[in-house]
């Protein structure tokens, strides 16, 4: 399961774009005034898909919920998924 670390995310929205293009639609815009990007854990298919990690430019901005490990830049196993 993935989540966005808002301390590091620059809101460039590349993750949103690729997730839409792949028709997974797990990345969404939160209903709050800052409109931060969030990841829906139900729709997200990680580790089956790692596309958002591949396009994220901000180190540490997407983390694994279970381990707290940063997955940006993507670890080796992400490239093998």
């Amino acid at each position: 399961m993935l989540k966005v670390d808002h301390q590091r995310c620059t809101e460039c929205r590349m993750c949103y774009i690729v997730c839409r293009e792949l028709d997974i639609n797990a990345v969404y815009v939160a209903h709050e005034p800052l409109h931060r990007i969030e990841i829906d854990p139900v729709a997200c298919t990680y580790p089956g898909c790692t596309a958002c990690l591949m396009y994220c430019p901000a180190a540490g901005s997407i983390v694994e919920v279970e381990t707290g490990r940063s997955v940006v830049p993507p670890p080796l196993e992400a490239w093998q998924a």
Partner: protein
Amino acid sequence: MRDLPGKALAQELAAASQAEARATPMEDVIAKAANDGLDTTATHRLVGRLWALERMFYYIYGGWGQGLEMNDFPPSVKYLFSKQIVDESTHEMLYMDLLLKKGFIANQKAAFADPACGFRVNSSLAYYIFSLRNLATYPHTIRIAALNLGPKILELAWTEALAAATDDPELKGAFESQIVENRSHVNMGRRIVEEFISKPVDAELAHWAVGIAKRDYCRYLQEVADIVLDRPLTAPTPPRVRVLD
């Protein structure tokens, strides 16, 4: 703080729009949402038509951006414009999220073929979009005045009212979360008019442009209300001048 040349004009334009803000065709949709609630079909049509407009702002602002040159305005004007482009894009994403989450469309691509979301040239939506795009040939200050002190004020009012009226939490959340940004667009318009519209000819142009933008926006809202409430489409008011060639 120094006197701003367009202060009185900005106040006048904003006050005129405020006075009309709760008399748009969206009032029927707000009443329906408050009294009976919007059913699935009505919600689908509402979000679809709003998404169809929001995505067209890429086209409108693309044209407006081409009309900007180096050093024609201070960086603050361009910053405010780029912030508005990002916000409009965010609103487009919010509506797309809603369409997907509620299962109205299977995926992003399907929206383009969906009757509620699709774009047709023979529509009031298209009329409004082309009307705004046409402002690309006018100074940036004029077109920002036209949009941000006209339709944006109307939009802010009906968005707030519809957010309060609906009991659909997702629809309410999507509208409520836009309010701060819409309010900031109105403030941007006020600031730009206050600071940069100083000549009588520009003030006259701003009056004209705000009037045109509001008229065409209300025509679009009429179409939205008719579609959402499943009424026959209201024929637009015929133009006063017949073009013969």
